[in-house]
C-alpha cells in the first residue's frame, strides 16, 4: 500500500474516533449510555472479526472469551478487592489463556468442525458457570458497585457510575481495540492471516506455519473479547452467566456480518445498528429476538457482504 492510501486510511479511522469523542457532548443522556455500551460491545465484535474476517475461522463460542474476561475481572473485584486496572489485566489474561488452551486443541479442526467444537466448549463453559454457582452466583450474577474503588486521576476520584467516565473509558477501550485491529491488518502478519483465509494450503507452501498464525489470531481475538467483557463488567457493574450463553456467541457473529466481515469499521457499524434495532424491537414486543433471526436470514440471502463490505465493493476499494 502506498503512502497516500495509508494516509487516507489513517485519516478516515482517526476521524471516526474523533467523531465518537465529540459525540458525547451532543448526545442526550439515554443515547449517551447506549453509545458507551455499543463501543464496549463493538470492541467484542472487533475481536470476533479478527478471527472470522481476517483469518476465515467462524466460531460459535466467543461468549466464553467474553465471559472469561468478565469473570476474570469481576471475581477478583468481588472477592479480593482488586482495583479497576488490576481487574482489567486479570480479565484479559484469563481470556487469552483460555483462548490459547482452546486453540491448541480446537485449531486441529477447521470449517464446520471448528464451529461445532467452539460451540461445545462454550456450552461447557456456560454450564460450568452455572454449576459453580456458589462462586459465580450463576444466573443471578453479582453486582460490583460498592466493591470497586473509583479510579484516582491526579487526586480526583473518578467513579465508573459517572456517565462521562463511563463514556470515555468505553471510548478508550474501543480505540485501543480498533487501532490494534487496524495495525494488525496493515502489518505483514495481517497479510499472512488474509492469505490463510484465502488459501491455507498455498500459504503453508510458502513456508508459513499456518497453525501458529491461526493460534496468534485466536489468542488476540479472545484477548479483545475478554477486554470487552472485563470492561463491560467494570463499567456496567454486573457479572452473570447470561453473558456466557449461546446468544452472546451469536451476537458478535451477527454484528460482524451486518457491518461487513473483514472490514475494520464493520463491527462498529453492525453493533450500533443492531443494538438500536433490538432496542426498538424490545419496546414493541417481548419476542424482540425475532429481529435477530430475520436479520441473519436476510443478510445471508441478500446482503452477504454486509454494510461496509458493500461500501468497499461499490465506492471505496481501499477500505481495510
Amino acid at each position, binding site marked *: 500500500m502506498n503512502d497516500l492510501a495509508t494516509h487516507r486510511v489513517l485519516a478516515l479511522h482517526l476521524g471516526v474516533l474523533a467523531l465518537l469523542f465529540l459525540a458525547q457532548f451532543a448526545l442526550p443522556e439515554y443515547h449517551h449510555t447506549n453509545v458507551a455500551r455499543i463501543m464496549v460491545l463493538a470492541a467484542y465484535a472487533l475481536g470476533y472479526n479478527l478471527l472470522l474476517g481476517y483469518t476465515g475461522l*467462524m466460531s*460459535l463460542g466467543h461468549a466464553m472469551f467474553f465471559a472469561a474476561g468478565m469473570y476474570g475481572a469481576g471475581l477478583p473485584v468481588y472477592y479480593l478487592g482488586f482495583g479497576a486496572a488490576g481487574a482489567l489485566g486479570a480479565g484479559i489474561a484469563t481470556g487469552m489463556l483460555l483462548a490459547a488452551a482452546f486453540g491448541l*486443541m*480446537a485449531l*486441529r*479442526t*477447521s*470449517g*464446520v*468442525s471448528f*464451529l*461445532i*467444537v467452539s*460451540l*461445545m*466448549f462454550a*456450552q*461447557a463453559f456456560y*454450564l*460450568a458457570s*452455572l*454449576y459453580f454457582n456458589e462462586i459465580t452466583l450463576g444466573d443471578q450474577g453479582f453486582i460490583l458497585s460498592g466493591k470497586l474503588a473509583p479510579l484516582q486521576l491526579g487526586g480526583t476520584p473518578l467513579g465508573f457510575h459517572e456517565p462521562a467516565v463511563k463514556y470515555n473509558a468505553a471510548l478508550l477501550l474501543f480505540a485501543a481495540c480498533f487501532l490494534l485491529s487496524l495495525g494488525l491488518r496493515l502489518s505483514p502478519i495481517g497479510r499472512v492471516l488474509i492469505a490463510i483465509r484465502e488459501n491455507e494450503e498455498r500459504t503453508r507452501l510458502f513456508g508459513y506455519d499456518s497453525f501458529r498464525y491461526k493460534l496468534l489470531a485466536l489468542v488476540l481475538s479472545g484477548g479483545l473479547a475478554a477486554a470487552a467483557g472485563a470492561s463491560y463488567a467494570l463499567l456496567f457493574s454486573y457479572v452473570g452467566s447470561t453473558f456466557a450463553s*449461546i446468544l452472546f456467541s*451469536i451476537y458478535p*457473529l451477527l454484528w460482524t*456480518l451486518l457491518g461487513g466481515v473483514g472490514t475494520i469499521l464493520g463491527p462498529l457499524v453492525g453493533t450500533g445498528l443492531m443494538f438500536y434495532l433490538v432496542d426498538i424491537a424490545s419496546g414493541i*414486543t*417481548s*419476542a*424482540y*429476538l*425475532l429481529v*435477530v*433471526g*430475520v*436479520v*441473519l*436470514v*436476510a*443478510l*445471508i*440471502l441478500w446482503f*452477504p457482504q454486509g454494510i461496509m463490505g458493500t461500501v468497499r465493493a461499490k465506492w471505496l476499494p481501499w477500505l481495510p
Partner: protein
Amino acid sequence: MSFGPHLFLALLEGTVSAFVLALTALGLSLVFGVMRIVNVAHGEFFMLGAVLAWFCASLVGTPVAGFLFALIAAPLIVGALALAADRLVLRRIDYHPEGTIVATIGLLYIIQQAVLTLYGPEARPVTPPVYFILSFPWFGYSGYKLVVAAISACLLAATWWLLARTKLGLYMRAAQQDLEMAQAFGVPARRVYAMVFALGAMLAAVAGVLVVPIQQAHYLMGLDPLLLSFIVVILGGLGSVKGTVVAAFVVGISDGVVSVFFSPTLAKIVATLLVAAVLVVRPGGLFGEDRA
C-alpha cells in the same frame, strides 16, 4: 430406595429418553449425512412438534384422539414448514456449509420467537393418552413412557426401512455417497434434498409430540435436544442409522445414570467436553472430510 433399584430406575429413565433422543438425532444425522449441512434449527422443529401437540390436544376432546391427531398433524405441519425453509432459504444459498449455519441460526430465532408470540411464555402440560402404572417391587413406573419407547422403536424401524428398501432411500444413499455421480444417473438431487430436510424435521417433530405428556411444552425447550443430538451425531457418525441409534443409547443411558447419581449439569458438562475432545482428536473426524 437402595442402590440396586435406584440404578434400575436410572437405566429405565435413560432408556426411554434414549429412544426419543435417537429419533431426534436421526433427523439431524440424515440431514447432515445426505446434505452435508448442519441444521441449527433442528431443536426448534422438536419444540414445534411439542407445541403443536398441545394445540391438537386442546382442539380434540379425548386425550387418545388428540394424541393420535397430533401424531399425524404435527409432523405434517412441521414437514411443510421445513420444505418452505429449504425452498426459500437453503436452496438459494446453495447449501453453503457456513452460510447454512448462519441461516439456520436465523430460522431458530424466527421459529422460537414466533412461538413465543403466538403461544406465549408458559409451559403447558398435555394429558397422556394412556395412563397405567407399571408396579415394580420398589416403585411404580408410568406406563406411558414405555408406550413412548415402543412408538419410537417402530418409527426408527420405519426410517431404516425407508432408507434401505425404498426408491427414495436409494436416492438418499446415492446422494450421500457421491452427489455428482448420483445426478449423472438421474437422481433428482433438489427433490431428494428437500425430502431429506423435511423428513429430518418430521422426525424431530414426532419426538416432540411423544415427549410432551412427560415434559411440558415450552418455547425454549428446543436447545437441549439440539445439543444432545449434536453429541449423538458426532459420536455416531454421519447419516448412519445404526451409528446414530447406538450413540443415542450410549448418550441417553449414561446421561440418565450420571444425572440420577450426580448432577444433570455435571453430566452435560462431561458429555460436551468429551464430544469436543472426540472431534479434536479426529480432526475433520467423525464428520468425514470437510467441505468448508
